[in-house]
């Protein structure tokens, strides 16, 4: 009871500390189906539904703030928002700058190549091949370590990597399997391309799933959000939201 009083007081203090008794949440709005901008300009997706459910759980009014991926951590640090819910993987590098809650989902990475490309997903199999990844993503770190004989090509966005896969400048791209599936393979441009090899989820490179980013000093908020993730998983709210977007277990093991 005492503990509950403590946390709700922290929530109140936190809410009072930000504008208009509310909390601002940085979201990306350009990463379907997790986060995308609807025709009317509103931001929708799995990340946003989860964020709203968590805010309801801890009893705070939340406003979504659309922020570019490049500037999303600086925005948090400069207090333009109080938390990042943007499918951000929990990695040691990011932990140096910000803090994370427990994961709220975890999906593996996978290769995509032209259908029938006859590639083997191993360091030897990909030797001398050109692999496209998004600059600064977890996938860059992973392919650099796991495929040392390959040529790694860095792109600003996943869309540019996919363009060069289509033109044949890279032999394969590696990214999150769900983002590749729904963002590329299931679209018109994805015709003639397919997954190959295994699913990859190495904690050292891929981190411990996607978490909610908070400033290092906001440990109360971090613990509250972590507890709220557990809570919505127990009440079945999480599965309800996940069921709207995915037909598999997006939370992972």
């Amino acid at each position: 009871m005492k503990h509950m009083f403590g946390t709700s007081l922290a929530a109140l203090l936190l809410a009072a500390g930000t504008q208009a008794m509310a909390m601002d949440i940085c979201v990306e709005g350009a990463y379907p189906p997790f986060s995308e901008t609807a025709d009317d300009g509103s931001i929708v997706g799995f990340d946003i539904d989860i964020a709203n459910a968590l805010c309801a759980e801890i009893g705070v009014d939340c406003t979504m703030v659309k922020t570019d991926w490049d500037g999303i951590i600086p925005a948090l640090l400069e207090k333009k928002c109080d938390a990042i819910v943007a499918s951000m993987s929990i990695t040691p590098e990011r932990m140096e700058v910000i803090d994370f809650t427990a994961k709220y989902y975890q999906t593996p990475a996978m290769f995509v190549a032209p259908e029938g490309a006859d590639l083997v997903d191993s360091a030897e199999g990909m030797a001398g091949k050109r692999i496209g990844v998004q600059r600064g993503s977890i996938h860059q770190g992973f392919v650099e370590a796991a495929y040392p004989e390959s040529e790694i090509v860095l792109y600003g966005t996943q869309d540019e990597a996919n363009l060069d896969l289509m033109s044949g400048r890279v032999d394969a791209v590696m990214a999150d399997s769900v983002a590749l599936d729904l963002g590329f393979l299931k679209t018109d441009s994805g015709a003639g391309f397919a997954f190959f090899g295994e699913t990859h989820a190495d904690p050292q490179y891929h981190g411990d799933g996607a978490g909610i980013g908070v400033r290092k000093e906001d440990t109360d908020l971090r613990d509250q959000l972590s507890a709220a993730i557990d809570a919505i998983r127990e009440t079945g709210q999480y599965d309800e939201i996940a069921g709207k977007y995915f037909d598999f277990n997006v939370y992972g093991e």
Partner: protein
Amino acid sequence: MRVDLVLDNWQMFAHGVWLTLQLTFLSILIGFLIALPSGIIRARRKPFWSPAINVYVYVFRGTPLLVQTFLIYYGLSQFAFIRESWAWTILRDPWWCALIAFSLNSGAYATEIIRGAVETTPKGELEAAAALGMTPRQTDCLVLIPSALRRALPQYGNEVVFMLHGSVVASVITLQDILGAGRTLNAKYYLAYEGFLTAAVLYMAITFSLVAVFRALERRYLKHLRPTRTPALP
């Protein structure tokens, strides 16, 4: 400031410097080889060639380098007939795409610099050449071109610095030049300040070296145009 992360990644920046220098100097060199004949033809208003060069100069000075690079890199790769032709062996490579775009861009600007220098050649120099009985070819090679190039030096120095700064465009077509290294540092550790400041310092160092080289060249080759102190009358 996390200087340690910059130092940990010094190899990435060293490769970046090497790539930036390669692209800058090669495109300046190729640009010069395009610009020398083009500039002279433009100055002499040769039929057919002069208007054709004018169109080239207009197009490449009229559009941003970034757009030219995107058109060559992503634009051309869209067409199946290009991907199936021999040209694809070159256009497939982002390094060649950048070099082609930068060279054509630099060539267009340098054409105008050389045209201006040729047009403003003092009449007396050409008359002196004629008085010495030089053939038109000798006049061009021994008088007109050396004289024009000397006088083009200050402007050409600017063009080289602009090309160096323009070469940052390479980082958007996957090349890891100096800015590419800075962007990678930023994306990996979220250290915008450290990554971009390192890039800025490196670009500045190269710029100052280039400026010093051109100043030395100007001192040597434009000595005759420098104001001199008149000896006091006895």
